[in-house]
């Protein structure tokens, strides 16, 4: 399995039947391929029940997700306006959201919407991290240039403070806890020390550390 699918598959293990979940673009969006049956997907523009990409007669303007992809609604779907969509988000009705990350800090701060000076806007990310019950960051452990993305303090503009619950990367799974970052899983063939070298904060290695499948 390639790195991106490995991350998505592991992140999707946090979902259980009956959950309503929001997925960001990129790797997070791939989580739907690995979710257990009974998970439903929410999209910011106002829908619960986002299904697979539509083709042919099913590809209509009336059903498109927040990435502008036309989809097929799954059984049990419902539609609502943008205010209701974010009411659902802020009030904690979403079991989980999976988002990309630029930086995650030791205390759970997340920076994921822009690099300094970026000019795209935050979209719905600040609402999602504010309200969702489980905020899961799915990202590669290090930036393209090898610099750590798990940091002592975020230098990029924040999406939210103290908001991240789980970090899933291609090499490890880390939980944010009041005590600090806890290393829960390490990729088959790697050691905790090899993870520690790639992150800034000191990791707490879980007593029950597991092996993450390749």
């Amino acid at each position, binding site marked *: 399995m390639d790195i991106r699918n490995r991350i998505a598959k592991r992140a999707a293990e946090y979902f259980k039947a009956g959950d309503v979940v929001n997925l960001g673009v990129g790797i997070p969006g791939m989580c739907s391929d690995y979710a257990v049956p009974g998970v439903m997907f929410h999209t*910011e523009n106002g829908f619960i029940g986002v299904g697979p990409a539509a083709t042919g007669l099913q590809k209509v303007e009336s059903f498109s997700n927040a990435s502008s992809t036309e989809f097929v609604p799954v059984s049990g779907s419902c539609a609502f*306006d943008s205010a209701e969509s974010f009411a659902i988000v802020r009030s904690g009705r979403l079991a989980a959201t999976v988002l990309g990350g630029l930086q995650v800090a030791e205390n759970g701060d997340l920076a994921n919407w822009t690099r300094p000076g970026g*000019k795209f806007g935050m979209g719905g990310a*600040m609402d999602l991290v504010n309200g969702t019950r489980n905020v899961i960051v799915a990202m590669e452990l290090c930036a393209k240039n090898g610099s750590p993305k798990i940091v002592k303090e975020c230098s990029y503009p924040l999406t939210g403070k103290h908001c991240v619950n789980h970090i899933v990367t291609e090499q490890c799974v880390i939980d944010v806890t009041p005590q600090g970052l806890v290393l829960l899983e390490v990729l088959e063939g790697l050691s905790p020390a090899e993870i520690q070298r790639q992150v800034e904060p000191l990791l707490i290695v879980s007593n029950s550390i597991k092996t993450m499948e390749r």
Partner: protein
Amino acid sequence: MPGKIRSRDEIIAQFKDGQTVMCGGMHNHGTPNNLIQCIIDSGVKHLTVISIDSADANLTLGRLYHHRLVDKLITSYIGRNTEVVAMLEAGEIDVEFVPQGSLAERVRCGGAGLGGVLTKTGLGTVVEETRQIVEINDSGEKYLLETALRADIGLVRARMADPLGNLAYRGTLRNSNPLIATASDLTIVDADMLMDVDEIGIDRIGTPGVYVDMVLAK
């Protein structure tokens, strides 16, 4: 009886230089494209636009930017529109970013006669720098105050409209449209289907006609 159904020409005549226009739709979907064309045909400039995003370059709502009709934009995201990003970098447009859920609430407040709402979204981020912080006396909890937004003209895409202006929506075409329908001095609708009075059905109506001023004739 035409009720609120109006000709293209009559709608084009409503647009003036410097107006604030809020527009439904997101990422090129659920946008009132026939009304976007009315703006372009009206020849107005220096608009302020309020919308969830700025669509793609020269597509749907993005056509307004392509034609350089907009001085200011209040939105949550422009990343899909290379032209708007370039304009922002060149200092040719003023963009105010609002978190998407807060933007929806600000428009709702504008349409609901409310002054604003208190939200935790954006606390501890750059958004906080431009917001009034309100502490609730009873709880001591701190929130950002997101104030009401209104516009001169609201442009709405609906699936169905009747001559009284009652509207119905479909799937994700809905998005911000029911909110945008409420918060302007003049609300104009681009409906896919014009229905007879009572054809939509009392319980299928998503926007009461009392909010709507004009429906574009087919």
